[in-house]
């Protein structure tokens, strides 16, 4: 009879799976995974951009830096070992970032099967509203970029090991440069919203630091975008040759 009188805690609705599966199944969990993979990808993008700034110090330095990336971790790791490790992690991060984004997008589309005859945005920034298409543009660009400067398949005059040459001759094609500029503007917008909202997805919120989140996102989005766009422009204007 006592069961009648005392409230049992109501059961949650799902059949329980392992906690990590449960976690990733939830939208909040997926957002957390997107935030963590996004942060990792951003860290890599930032280092990638910083490393490429070496191009301004001349062909010799730049090629040496490329060589360093190949031998990085020696003698503990074999040649390209670190690079392969990092690329594997990147692939995993990209996979989860895109998978989570896709599943969430499907969930969100289902949440409003019939749209409005008219709708207006009152707060959502252009960047926030273009995260999905921006992401698609970035993905296509990354594929092109790897084919272009990493493997040279899409490059008019690719010389294995001479990254400075590949860099300059690659950007001398005006439309290739245009692709880079457009893609990096998209990346900048993606970062502008993503770097800000990842804090919220992870629940990192503090009245005193909230204003800094916006500054952080804006600052890094600007730095990465401007630096990356400078490369094709520097080639097209003949500053790098």
């Amino acid at each position: 009879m006592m069961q009648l009188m005392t409230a049992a805690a109501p059961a949650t609705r799902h059949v329980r799976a392992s906690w990590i599966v449960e976690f990733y199944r939830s939208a909040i969990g997926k957002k957390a995974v997107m935030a963590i993979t996004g942060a990792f990808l951003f860290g890599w993008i930032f280092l990638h951009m910083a490393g490429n700034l070496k191009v301004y110090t001349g062909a010799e330095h730049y090629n040496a830096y490329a060589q360093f990336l190949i031998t990085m971790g020696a003698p503990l790791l074999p040649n390209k070992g670190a690079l392969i490790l990092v690329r594997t992690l990147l692939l995993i991060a990209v996979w989860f970032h895109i998978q989570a984004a896709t599943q969430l997008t499907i969930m969100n589309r289902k949440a409003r099967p019939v749209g409005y005859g008219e709708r207006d945005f009152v707060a959502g920034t252009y960047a926030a509203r273009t995260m999905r298409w921006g992401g698609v543009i970035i993905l296509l660009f990354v594929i092109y970029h790897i084919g272009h400067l990493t493997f040279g398949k899409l490059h008019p005059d690719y010389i294995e090991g001479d990254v400075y040459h590949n860099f300059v001759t690659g950007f001398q094609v005006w439309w290739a440069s245009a692709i880079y500029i457009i893609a990096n503007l998209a990346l900048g917008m993606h970062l502008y919203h993503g770097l800000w909202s990842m804090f919220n997805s992870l629940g990192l919120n503090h009245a005193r630091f909230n204003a800094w989140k916006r500054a952080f996102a804006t600052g890094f989005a600007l730095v990465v975008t401007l630096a990356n766009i400078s490369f094709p422009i520097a080639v097209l204007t003949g500053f790098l040759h």
Partner: protein
Amino acid sequence: MTLDSKIPPGPIDKKWEYAKAHYKLVNPANKRKYDVIVVGAGLAGAAAAASMAELGYNVHCFVYHDSPRRAHSIAAQGGINAAKNYQNDGDSIYRLFYDTVKGGDYRSRESNVYRLAELSVNIIDQAVAQGVPFAREYGGLLENRSFGGVQVSRTFYARGQTGQQLLLGAFQALERQIGLGRVKMYPRHEMLDVVLVDGQAKGIVTRNLVSGTITSYAADAVVLATGGYANVFYLSTNAKASNATAIWRAYRRGAYFANPCYTQIHPTCIPQSGDFQSKLTLMSESLRNDGRIWVPKVAGDARRPDQIPEAERDYYLERKYPSFGNLAPRDIASRGAKEVCDEGRGVGPGGRGVYLDFADAIKRLGRNVIEERYGNLFEMYADITAENPYEVPMRIYPAPHYTMGGLWVDYNLMSNIPGLYVGGEANFSDHGANRLGASALMQGLADGYFVLPVTIGDYLAGQLGKKVSADRPEFKQTQAEVEERIGKLVNAKGKRSVDSFHKALGNIMWERCGMARTAEGLKSAIADIRVLREQYWRDVRVLGTNEEPNQALEKAGRVADFFDLGELMCIDALQREESAGGHFRVEYQTAEGEAKRNDDDFLYVSAWQFKGDNAAPELHKEPLVYEEVKLATRSYK
């Protein structure tokens, strides 16, 4: 039938204890065998439904809203009284009891009011435990303020949204029981009749507001917590859907309607701005702590307020009531405003308004202090009127706000129909002829949390094995009558909209059964209501059918009941040849124009019994016996 109020024996502070010790109990194992219907989920209904479910009863809760969290309790701003004496200012249960009896102008039942004061302290504990974020001092303890013309600080509040926060507490408790499967919720269901089997309340008939389906539900007891009837005036501070249909249908089935004429007109509402006006908005009467009320001395003075010199202003409340001044009780302040407007000295569109001026307070305290105290109210006023109250005096006018009358109940909150319980504003019990500020929330929650769940067991204990099914002929009969009535409304196919009739009724009620009433006015009102009602059934236009969502049909049924209720209010007001609290008969006033009670002839609750559509209702009198409080004339001079 004699009215047995079932007041427990013993000294006043031991009556509730005595009653609880002598109620029959229901075996815990048997509680789940009982079905209880609760109609309404405001403070009283949600609290009762949740608490009864916690005890183990099967509760079925019906609301016409989409969610139980929308009941009009949500709109209460000011606060809730409790005799906690946290401020060490001499408050006590007895003092709260005394203030409430006096505030009610000695027309309430002592034993009920004492129990209310006793339970007030438990309500605060319960609400805080539920997470109601009451205002706090910097030390983290609960803050109080003084409210509604009493001399102690006993009012607990939550940022001008006290009603909402208390309702959310009760709502959350109710939702928990729904989640646990112990309350079955029926949202968008309107109760249209109560079903009696062998003289006992055994169920209700409802209309599903989405499909139009009319259904009967059987239970072992029925609790009505369906709020008040101030919308009989059309323009009131009540929510648009607030209505009297549930209690009126119960009245027609034999439940007595007590003190229908006791209505409260709240003094600080925003005046009407045009014919399109659909409701009136109340502003917390705490504004009267710093605002000064005035009108021009000369009728028809059309100057802007800042161009009327001090000497040509009449601060009439300060003039007539030097000791309470602008803080005089609600009924007195409201009547004052009506009088000056009737003299042609009112301000604003239509001359129906008086100034509530903060210029002096701003000069004395600074704009910042005023902003801190009343910022949100000033903002609301500015939103609605497009005037800046920091620069131009506010305009206020009284508006119907609360109805003290309701179904007659005994000490156990059971009506004269066995098994039919009534809680909150829907009953008549605790406020007498006038309700003090911050007392409505207290009463709703006391009834819901602490009284009904206990007293209902006393009745249910005798009902074991007497369950009825909704297939019985009594249900079929009642349901057929409901359907017939709906058919009449849908098929009237007249020319006038429901709202236009409601406005006309409201006008009659406001002018003749509002703040000041005369025998002559009431008689003509009764005659006019009858004519209008007759037109209504002939000429009302309800488009569409029953079998669909139909807001015009919903309104049509409610307004039809308001006609009948309005008539009874006038009959009751006519019968009560005295002035008491919210009921002011012009013929019965002192030389200074104050309400003149007549304790020799009218120290009773008038409880009206329905005798048929074409017969006069019968008056039953429950004598009021004052053992604790000495009858005195209220004085706020």
